[in-house]
């Protein structure tokens, strides 16, 4: 039993260091990609389109739904305690600081993260990754780096989009249901919004995008030879990216609270 435990610890530690090494190489290659990315520019464009553009409808729906729910609950509940003006602050905290980045990350993990792991895993099985090596093309620089940049850029814009739809879409809902004048609503909303909210949101989306792409590509490349490994690695990739995003969310929130 001790032997098995020792083997497990050794394997886990070795995998952790391998993962950290992969993450470091990917960050370096992504930085270098910005200087010499011409060869894999089409991969980047395709990634931004798939992650960014195609996720717009689903995110709009989620964001509008949450924004509307918060404002309906807030404007009906908070005035009972004499805290009606807090509704806007809560809306901003929920949409911009917390749920916006996290839900956007979860949607991207489910759509793009799983797609990246599946695609790269199948490429390993079909020897396509080996073919890149054989041609003198580094698969991390050519395939993973543009995906990391694409997912991170898309994550930042999708997060801003989520916030805009959530904040201003809720405005339309509040006007329709409670008859709140649009101008007054917007004035209160903008007054409640501060630089820290935007900074926190942007930093979270940058970190989450980086985590999602790193984890998805790492698990994709971890497939060794069998097609049956692909769904296993995809599930592992989803679990790991969601866990890491939630942990990172807590850390960034604490840092901003203390800052």
């Amino acid at each position, binding site marked *: 039993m001790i032997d098995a435990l020792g083997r497990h610890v050794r394997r886990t530690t070795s995998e952790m260091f391998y993962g950290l090494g992969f993450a470091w190489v990917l960050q370096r290659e992504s930085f270098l990609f910005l200087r010499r990315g011409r*060869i894999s520019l089409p991969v980047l464009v395709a990634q931004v389109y798939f992650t960014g553009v195609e996720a717009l409808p689903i995110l709009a729906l989620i964001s509008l739904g949450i924004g509307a729910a918060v404002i309906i609950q807030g404007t009906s509940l908070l005035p009972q305690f004499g805290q009606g003006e807090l509704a806007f602050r809560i809306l901003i905290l929920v949409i911009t600081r917390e749920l916006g980045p996290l839900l956007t990350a979860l949607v991207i993990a489910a759509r793009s993260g799983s797609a990246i792991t599946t*695609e790269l895993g199948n*490429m390993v099985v*079909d*020897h*396509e990754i*080996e*073919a*890149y*090596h*054989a*041609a*003198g*093309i*580094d698969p991390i620089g050519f395939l993973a780096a543009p995906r990391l940049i694409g997912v991170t850029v898309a994550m930042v814009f999708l997060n801003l989009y989520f916030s805009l739809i959530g904040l201003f879409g809720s405005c339309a809902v509040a006007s329709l249901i409670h008859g709140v004048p649009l101008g007054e609503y917007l004035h209160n909303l903008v007054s409640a919004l501060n630089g820290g909210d935007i900074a926190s949101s942007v930093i979270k989306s940058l970190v989450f995008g980086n985590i999602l792409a790193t984890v998805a590509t790492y698990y994709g490349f971890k497939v060794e030879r069998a097609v049956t490994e692909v769904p296993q690695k995809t599930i592992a990739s989803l679990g790991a990216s969601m866990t890491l995003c939630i942990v990172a969310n807590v850390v960034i929130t604490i840092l901003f609270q203390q800052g």
Partner: protein
Amino acid sequence: MRIELQNVSVERRGRRILDRVDAVFAPGQMTVVLGRSGAGLSTLLKTAAGLVQPTGGQVLYDGQALANLDHRRRQALQTRTGFMFQDAALWANSSLLVNLDLPLQAKFPGLGPAERRVRIDTALNSCGFAADLRLRPAMLSHGQQTMVSFLRAIAPGPEALFLDEPMAAMDQRWRGILIRVLGELRAQGAAVVAVSHDAELARVLADRLVILADGRVLADGAPEAVRESSDPAVREILHDRFAAADPAGE
């Protein structure tokens, strides 16, 4: 380019696939590696091509040990070689044109699209291969995909060419073309290495035969010398490979 395997061993999950292999693949020479399935043929080829890391020994490219080279220099060396995979291994999400163009972009970063297209057309014409290059690989037959894999390997003008079962999916016409083009590449000074279960390539083009069994080199030399080997294991493998193609015997 001269490629040398010195005392190379490869182990996977406790199983020894290559066992202290020594081999030299010289410029202007065609080497055919023969053996039974599971003998370590593909592993030998991939190790020589730098795609598999040996667990023992070393692989030298023009005297430089691959293991001592940094990532970038290793990649630069690999742009000078070509590899044709047994199952084609074309990039499925890219068009045929991209499949042929990427290795050229990697090897000649300064070359413009028009110049690269000239090189692609030259390779296509040399093999008389005609297809709509906007198609994805899945639209082609397996034989055609194998041919594109061959074209992808030769388009950048490799100094060393590795072929994994090149004849397996090809009809007689493609086989003839492949043999002619390989002869031309050899004449231009490329080191050509093929692993094959097919005797035709060995019979027509080989300057050297290497016989592999259970990861070990049983025989290595000129085809005539190897075919006269008294080792029963070598004779058995040669008999299996050549009997059908050459009824006159070994």
